[in-house]
């Protein structure tokens, strides 16, 4: 084994990110590393490269026990990493980037000629003929990536880690990248390939390591595992089943359509999505990481521009240029990452909840405190938010209660459509079913809910209909009668033909 990571554990602020994870990579092999968001892939890689300190566990590389304390450390040992955002000094030349930190010198001065020639030689091995004096920023993503790979080759890396290397490449560029990876493999370089497009993994990788909830749940030769099995391992299932949730009354399929996407597309992440949300129902949106779920929500909410196809809200064609347009039409979005674009941690529950409502709470330019109090109190009661007082900073609440405040933020604007992206992420199991019950109750009162989730159990329990996305396109719609774990897995494992 070139690399052996055993029993790796790591936690952040008491929350376990890795629990006895393992990863083995043989000499010259291409190992796929897969898992949902939060499965622990990137934490594992950061521990390997020395960006994070290892808490427990053992790492052996190239036959020796190692502990890397910095990225420079692991690089010196022969581990190169190409991050998704391709970390190169953008304004420096190609040649300089390939040699940065290990420049050839002549009498102590930089040997520009040797750098240029060396860079050309390395790039030639990958059939790349570019002006090595131009700044890296002037090349496209595929070329930049190739330069990063050339840098690792020049540093004699034995193990190359690639984090979603195909995410910004088109088909032709992907095939060039794969040729490059095979060239590396022929030279004896091992590769850890982090990705989520299943077809690509099957095309290039020898083995796969699957992670879930901070653990390694399966390791298999690529040809010995079916796509469906692979997806099943990635998603797993919650052990505790949700309390039985009621669904919409029969006949909800006949209710008027409130929001509809037809052949919608934007950029490369959303290619062709058909989606329907009716009055008073929960419409589920499923798909693997990178399938375009959140991006679809961004289009509906006016954060990304609808470039192709159509969006109809309440029967009328719409193109939103900013979220304010969508909000004016009664659309709300509770985003995936509460911490980044949801809560304002130090502000109180009162302020967090009424943020979207403030313009309407003004009376002669001043916030009408009495009305604000009334609304806040009503939602604290209705959503059963557990807090000491409305003036408590929101950061002191549990994840589930923070999520309820965010839901209330939109509910108090009286929306017609509420998009919830991963509404139960980072929330303990009891609070999860409470949030789902709450969404159901709101739907019964007439709200249209679009629920994006990577948890199958959750979708199966709560949604009246599930639209499945794969690689930016809707590939299946499962009505309630056809909903089963098996049908959902089969649809998700489907990759663009």
């Amino acid at each position, binding site marked *: 084994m070139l690399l052996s990571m055993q029993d790796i554990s790591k936690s952040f602020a008491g929350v376990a990110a890795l629990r006895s994870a393992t990863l083995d990579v043989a000499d010259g092999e291409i190992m796929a590393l897969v898992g949902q968001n939060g499965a622990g892939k990137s934490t594992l890689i950061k521990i390997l490269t020395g960006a994070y300190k290892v808490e427990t566990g053992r790492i052996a590389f190239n036959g020796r026990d190692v502990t890397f304390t910095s990225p420079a450390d692991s690089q010196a040992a022969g581990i190169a990493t190409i991050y998704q955002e391709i970390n*190169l000094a953008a304004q*420096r030349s190609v040649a300089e980037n390939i040699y940065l930190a290990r420049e050839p010198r002549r009498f102590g*001065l930089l040997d520009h000629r040797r750098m240029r020639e060396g860079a050309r030689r390395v790039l030639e091995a990958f059939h790349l003929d570019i002006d090595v004096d131009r700044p890296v920023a002037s090349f496209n993503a595929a070329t930049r990536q190739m330069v990063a790979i050339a840098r690792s080759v020049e540093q004699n890396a034995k193990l190359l880690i690639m984090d979603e290397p195909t995410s910004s490449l088109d088909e032709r560029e992907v095939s060039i990248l794969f040729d490059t990876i095979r060239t590396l493999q022929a030279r004896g370089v091992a590769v850890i390939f982090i990705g989520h497009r299943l077809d690509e993994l099957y095309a290039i990788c020898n083995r796969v390591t699957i992670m879930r909830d901070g653990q390694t749940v399966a390791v298999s030769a690529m040809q010995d595992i079916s796509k469906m099995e692979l997806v099943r391992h990635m998603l797993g299932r919650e052990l505790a089943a949700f309390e039985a949730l009621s669904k919409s009354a029969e006949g909800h399929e006949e209710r008027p359509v409130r929001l509809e996407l037809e052949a919608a597309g934007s950029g490369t992440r959303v290619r062709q999505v058909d989606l329907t949300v009716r009055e008073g129902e929960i419409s589920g949106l499923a798909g693997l990481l990178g399938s375009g779920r959140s991006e679809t929500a961004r289009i509906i909410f006016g954060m990304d521009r609808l470039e192709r196809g159509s969006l109809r809200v309440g029967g009328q064609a719409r193109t939103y240029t900013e979220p304010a347009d969508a909000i004016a039409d009664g659309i709300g979005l509770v985003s995936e990452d509460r911490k980044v674009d949801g809560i304002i941690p130090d502000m109180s529950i009162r302020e967090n909840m009424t943020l979207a409502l403030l313009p309407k709470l003004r009376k002669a330019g001043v916030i009408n405190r009495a009305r604000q109090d009334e609304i806040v109190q009503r939602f604290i009661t209705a959503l059963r938010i557990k807090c000491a007082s409305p003036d408590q900073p929101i950061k002191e609440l549990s994840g589930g209660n923070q999520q309820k405040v965010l839901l209330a933020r939109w509910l108090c604007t009286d929306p017609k459509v509420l998009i919830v992206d991963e509404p139960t992420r980072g929330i303990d199991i009891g609070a999860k079913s409470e949030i789902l019950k709450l969404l159901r109750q709101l739907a019964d009162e007439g709200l249209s809910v679009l629920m994006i989730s990577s948890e199958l159990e959750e979708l199966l329990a709560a949604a009246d209909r599930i639209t499945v996305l794969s690689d930016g396109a809707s590939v299946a719609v499962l009505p309630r009668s056809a909903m089963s774990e098996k049908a959902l897995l089969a649809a998700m494992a489907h990759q663009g033909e």
Partner: protein
Amino acid sequence: MSAARFIPAFLRPKTSGDLARLGVMVALLALILFGALRYDNFLSSFNILSFLRYNAMFALIALGMCFVIITGGIDLSVGGVAALASVVSAFASPYGWAAGLAAGMAAGLAFGVLNGIMITQMRIQPFIATLAAMLASYGTALLLADNQSVSVSYDTAFTMLGQDDILGFPIPAWIALAAYILGWIFLERLPAGRHVLAVGDGEATALLMGLKVRRTVFSVYAVSGLLAGLAGTVLAAQFGAGQPTEGVGWELFAIASVVVGGTLLSGGAGSVGATLAGVLLLGMVFNVLNFENGLGWISLSAYWQSVIRGLFLLVVVVLQAKIAARPEEQG
């Protein structure tokens, strides 16, 4: 595209930054041409030599500022440090010119090191750290000098550092020239110089590529302090006195010169040669305004000169931003 064919390959701009730097050279030449044609004594040796003697101090400070700005930082303390160094070197001048020079540079280096420690070890924002150093250095200078200028010793050769010539050129100009040659070699020909550029491009990236980011950032502030100390020493020698109240606004002049020279305030790109051109260009605007007053048709007060210089700076910076905003080719 067509015009570029006539430019030799090594001069041909490869990036928009190169274009901006080329622009400052062209502007400098144009202004010199303008002055030469319009005013009788513009190209007289007296005007040229006194221009170089005076602007050498700004050139020294701008060079240090150039390195600092390339890393994405800022050094507001250079004016204060130069004032302090002028006082310190004046006190040391009775012990010989070398003692004066060493004392002034040591005072500058001390403040540069202090800035470096505050920024890299204590993780204080460069703006705040060097603002504190600026106040502290002025305060120290005023305390040491007891709120007066400190006469240098005329018994030693100290004043030659500011007033004498070698081969017909002022010594301050020779000092600045030497500093710029060393600075150019550092930035263009030494790995450490390229690391300064890479750090400015993105600290996180530089760290991941295995560069010693803290050491690099520390050293640019140390060098900036050292050069400010040198400039302060030249100041004392040139005017025959340590000047605790001199140096006000020098940091802004230095920042302006660096920016006019096409160095990005966001860091990651910059050039020693263009910085020198920037200093000369801004100095030249002053010089031209003085000549314009000398013609007797108009009389611009110092206030108006300041306004005109500000407008000139604005025009140059806006033009550069326009050049830099042009989309680059994909390869």
